[in-house]
């Protein structure tokens, strides 16, 4: 294995304290280290983006598989010694990282594909690489008539088959905010939804970590959950009985963004990486099975497995302001813990 060099072997087997104190840089010259979500994202970026980047710019990329929250935690802990050059984040963690000053500013002029991306998707500190659409997923074999809106999830017979997740993920948080709106609440007033959640918790089929949801769904413990179209398309592509439905109040959309880590070693290569990721060719490839990522490049013609028709459709969907959500999210999480615990 190339990753275990002889030097590692000797060092590892030798005096341990000494060995570990040798600052071994993992970066090759002309390289780039990017964080990536484990699973499909990693497969997609390894399989599609990395070869394209190597071909077009001769940049070798190494991926560090980490969920968004872990990326931010890792960079915060390693302040001043960034463990990687590029983030990939959802809005929640992105807003926290922004607040903590973990990003380098973005100069859109360095991105040749910037004009192909709708306005507002390249910001002062981030480049959108993918859109996510969140709604309700259900098992069509168990429910011939799907729930119509967020409020239906709290009614029988749906609530008994519902898998609830809390505020720890971006998709969970925005879904619960929309549920709050369905019961007359808002970001400023979450009382109505907490009252509903409290009632639903006793009846719901599961209240679980998001990571457990696909397994619970597959084994029939739950038949309804809220999630993104990406997850639904992947599972459907693998033969799972699952369908996506847009709630009557509209599906939710948010962006997945790439950022350059403050103090990154390979800033120029990071621009090349981001530029490659948003190019029409790559975006078109990433929307195919088994990746199913919603493109944001206007030149890409959308395939029909994605549950949306065009990039423009995204602009009509529900969006959220994370600078308002983040300050109150800790309190929501605490309250969720306290109210749903038996």
């Amino acid at each position: 294995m190339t990753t275990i060099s002889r030097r590692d072997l000797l060092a590892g087997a030798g005096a341990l304290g000494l060995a570990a104190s040798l600052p071994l840089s993992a970066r090759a010259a002309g390289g780039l280290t990017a964080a990536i979500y484990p699973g499909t994202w990693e497969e997609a970026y390894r399989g599609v983006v990395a070869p394209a980047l190597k071909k077009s710019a001769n940049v070798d990329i190494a991926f560090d598989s980490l969920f968004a929250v872990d990326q931010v935690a890792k960079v915060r802990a390693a302040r001043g010694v960034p463990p990687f050059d590029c983030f990939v984040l959802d809005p929640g963690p992105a807003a926290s990282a922004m607040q903590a000053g973990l990003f380098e500013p973005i100069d859109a002029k360095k991105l040749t594909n910037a004009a192909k991306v709708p306005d507002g998707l390249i910001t002062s500190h981030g480049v959108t690489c993918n859109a996510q659409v969140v709604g309700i997923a259900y098992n069509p074999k168990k429910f011939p008539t799907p729930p119509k809106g967020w409020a239906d999830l709290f009614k029988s017979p749906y609530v008994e088959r519902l898998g609830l997740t809390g505020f720890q993920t971006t998709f969970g948080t925005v879904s619960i905010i929309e549920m709050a709106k369905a019961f007359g609440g808002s970001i400023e007033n979450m009382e109505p939804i907490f009252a509903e959640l409290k009632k639903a918790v006793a009846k719901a089929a599961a209240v679980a970590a998001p990571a457990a949801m696909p397994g619970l769904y597959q084994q029939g413990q739950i038949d309804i959950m809220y999630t993104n179209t990406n997850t639904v398309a992947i599972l459907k592509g693998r033969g799972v009985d699952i369908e996506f439905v847009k709630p009557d109040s509209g599906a939710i959309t948010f962006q997945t963004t790439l950022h350059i880590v403050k103090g990154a070693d390979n800033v120029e290569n990071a621009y090349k990486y981001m530029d490659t990721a948003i190019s029409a060719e790559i975006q078109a490839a990433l929307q195919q099975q088994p990746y199913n990522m919603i493109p944001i490049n206007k030149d890409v013609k959308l395939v029909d497995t994605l549950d949306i028709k065009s990039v423009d459709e995204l602009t009509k969907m529900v969006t959220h302001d994370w600078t308002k959500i983040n300050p109150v999210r800790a309190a929501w999480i605490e309250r969720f813990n306290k109210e749903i615990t038996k």
Partner: protein
Amino acid sequence: MAGAAIAAAGGSAPGDRVEWRLAAPLGLTYLVFFAAPFAILLGISFYADAEQTRLGLDSWTKFYGDAFYLKVIFDTLKLGLFAVAATTLLAYPLALVFRASGPKLQRLLIFIILMPLLTSVVIRTFAWIVILAREGVVNQTLMGLGLTAAPLNLLQTELGLVIALTQIEMPLMLLPLLTIMNQMDQNLVDASRALGASKWRTFFKVVLPLTLPGWIAGATLVFASATTAFISQSVIGGARLVYLPALIWQQSTVVYNWPFAAVASLTLLFTVLAGIMALGWLGRFAKTN
């Protein structure tokens, strides 16, 4: 052998002094790789706010002033105790059967005992979903036998979690217990039986005291492991059951309140350590009696 034992009992306990030279390599390794990070953690816990701008005891008072968090500590320790009780109840009979078995059966048993360790925690949680879910193996068996009409809720309950932890932690209890059980002098057991003691009495008066060091080692590992088993707790237990590790995860990676996460971590460390030291004390107490 017997003569030597008598001689030792008469003499003074050898080396009632920590041999620092032998402890030094591990001690120094820990000093660099554990004590320093630990000190950082301790330092962070004295920041008053999530942004770490102000010093103060706020994180500590918030944690200990809230009945909810005290209940989380209590639930976490309770989960550890349940896991120890359940693994003990099943491990001792298994160890006795192991001791009574021939070498072939012993090898098979060892393999069975090691099995849970060979399935990664990731896939193990899936297996427990399969077993405990509404349409799972247990419910289908019970309903097939007509023992229950409606499916039981096992997944995401404390009972379900304890059952799953029992499987996962059992090797931690059994491996130390078996090594001690195998070192046990069969003559003592035979003597007890020959003197007319029942099997129950022999177990409680001879086997149990002799194997206690193994049990304490096992119980220590099970208790420590069950109270910190974040993945099993959150996937099999679900979000309705909140334990300290899930709280620490939320606070450190979702809301980035590291001072609060540090307080929760140190609380977990000190309470579980206290539990373990109590176990050790129990062991010495039992020995002297």
